[in-house]
């Protein structure tokens, strides 16, 4: 009884402010973006890495893969560095936040698949 109330509460609260952004479902795969930009900030940590880039006058957060996958694909911290040009192909958040999930990124002429 109490547990079902707790679950009901969890379901009610779920649509409130989204702090996290997991899976591919919250991104709109029907509106892919290809952006040429410069890496303004980079963090390659768990649970997943992020880049900051400028696009259309806004600062975008680009969600990358976890360090284990980044490393497996060769996108190490010596490759993905601040100040480098980057091409990002990804999908924007459905809710309009300036955030995209990267399907792949290109740095130094190499493409890194991140899914």
């Amino acid at each position: 009884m109490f547990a079902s109330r707790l679950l009901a509460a969890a379901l009610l609260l779920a649509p409130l402010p989204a702090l996290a952004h997991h899976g591919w479902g919250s991104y709109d795969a029907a509106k892919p973006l290809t952006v040429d930009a410069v890496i303004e900030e980079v963090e390659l940590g768990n649970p997943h890495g992020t880049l900051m880039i400028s696009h259309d006058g806004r600062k975008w957060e680009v969600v990358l893969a976890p360090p284990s996958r980044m490393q497996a694909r060769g996108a190490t911290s010596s490759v993905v560095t601040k100040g480098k040009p980057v091409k990002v192909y990804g999908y924007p958040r459905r809710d309009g936040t300036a955030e995209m999930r990267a399907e792949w990124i290109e740095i130094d002429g190499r493409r890194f698949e991140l899914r």
Partner: protein
Amino acid sequence: MIALLEAVQASAFAAYVRDSVLLYPFANVAHVVAVMVFFAAVAVMDLRLLRVIRGMPVPLVIERLRPVAVGALVVIAATGLTLFVPEAAATARNQAFLLKLAAIALALGNIAVNEWALRRDGESSRTVQVTAGLSLALWLSTAALGRAIAYV
């Protein structure tokens, strides 16, 4: 509280976990596997109390399975802390995480009540039966809320 969590997040251990290629995914996998072991042990004890499973006497079932549950809980706590630390401040604001902590607190309190009633009134008492059922519901809710952390 927020300052403390930000200090935790800025610690050397947090930085180590955040940048780890193996530790974080290992903790992630071990956490889930330990949850399965924990719930298997808990479910057998609860289902025995509820007489869905019969045969072996209740004290013997508890004697055999409680160490399994406690051991798994230690692994769950250690790996859970490892997963929490790199994003301590953000996770502490996560509604699913807060509900999960509440569910754990209720589930642990529920064990105490169950144990107390079992000693005082015996295994067929109403309190023991109700808390055995609650135990199943609360631990399953805890697991569900844990998975929900990544999505809210």
